């Protein structure tokens, strides 16, 4: 099959590095590892450049390979007995990066605690704005599984977020009461 599109490697890197890096970072929770994964993904793309048929195909290919590489990296780390998300808080904390709001930071942290399948579905849905069908094609999972992961993940995320919010409000109230008692 022939195609007229001539991909330019540097241009593709410029266009998609933020997507690839963000996907890998949110999947693994390790900034350094995410950078390594992004490098590997782009170098692999360089080797398969002739097979890419269109900008949309390149984007799809990058998403798919990034998700698969990130899952592999998580699996390797699990085998080695390292908990990435504990490591992340200690070394490469997401909070180091400026996020739009404190709640956003909180949501990212809670998202990180979700099971891998639910996390990947939610990241692709809300970071990449993909439909469940597109997510199913990207990660190679049945549509029903993706829908279920999205629903369960969202429910779990919401429940954990409201718990944390209640704790946050309670601790603020407690701190406020203690301050007013001290003044008296």
């Amino acid at each position, binding site marked *: 099959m022939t195609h007229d599109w001539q991909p330019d*490697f540097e241009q593709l890197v410029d266009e998609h590095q933020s997507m690839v*890096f*963000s996907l890998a970072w949110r999947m693994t929770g390790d900034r350094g590892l995410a950078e390594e994964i992004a490098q590997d993904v782009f170098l692999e793309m360089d080797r398969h450049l002739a097979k890419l048929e269109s900008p949309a195909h390149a984007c799809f290919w990058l998403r798919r390979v990034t998700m698969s590489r990130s899952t592999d990296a998580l699996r390797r780390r699990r085998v080695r007995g390292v908990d990435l998300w504990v490591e992340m808080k200690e070394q490469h904390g997401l909070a180091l990066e400026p*996020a739009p709001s404190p709640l956003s930071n909180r949501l*990212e942290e809670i998202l990180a605690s979700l099971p891998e399948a639910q996390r990947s579905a939610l*990241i692709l849905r*809300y*970071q990449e704005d993909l439909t469940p069908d597109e997510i199913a094609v990207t990660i190679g999972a049945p549509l029903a599984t993706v829908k279920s992961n999205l629903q369960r993940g969202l429910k779990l995320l919401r429940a954990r977020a409201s718990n944390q919010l209640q704790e946050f409000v309670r601790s603020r109230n407690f701190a406020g009461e203690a301050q007013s008692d001290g003044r008296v």
Partner: protein
Amino acid sequence: MEEFEQELRQSLERRPAPPSLKRNLMALRRQHARSRQHFEWQKLAAALVMAAVLGTAALWGGHAWEQRISQQKEEQRQGEAARQQVLIALRLTSHALNHMNQQLAAHNQPD
């Protein structure tokens, strides 16, 4: 739920990649291209060496084959000559025996 999803969408906006990513990537790509080129030269050199070895082997094999054929022809020729000599000797012997047989027959005839 929609408000929550909106908040989630905002919190999951793409983060900018570190500048080192592209810099390292381009350096790695150049390095890979160089090693690929080096590998191509190595492949070419290996192909030339292989061709030379195969060519020499073919020449040597051809020469050996010719030698064997000519040796076989020489042996065949010598064998043929020996056979001819044996036939001549047999013919002479047969002739001598016939002669002797005739003489004996003449001697034994009653007068």
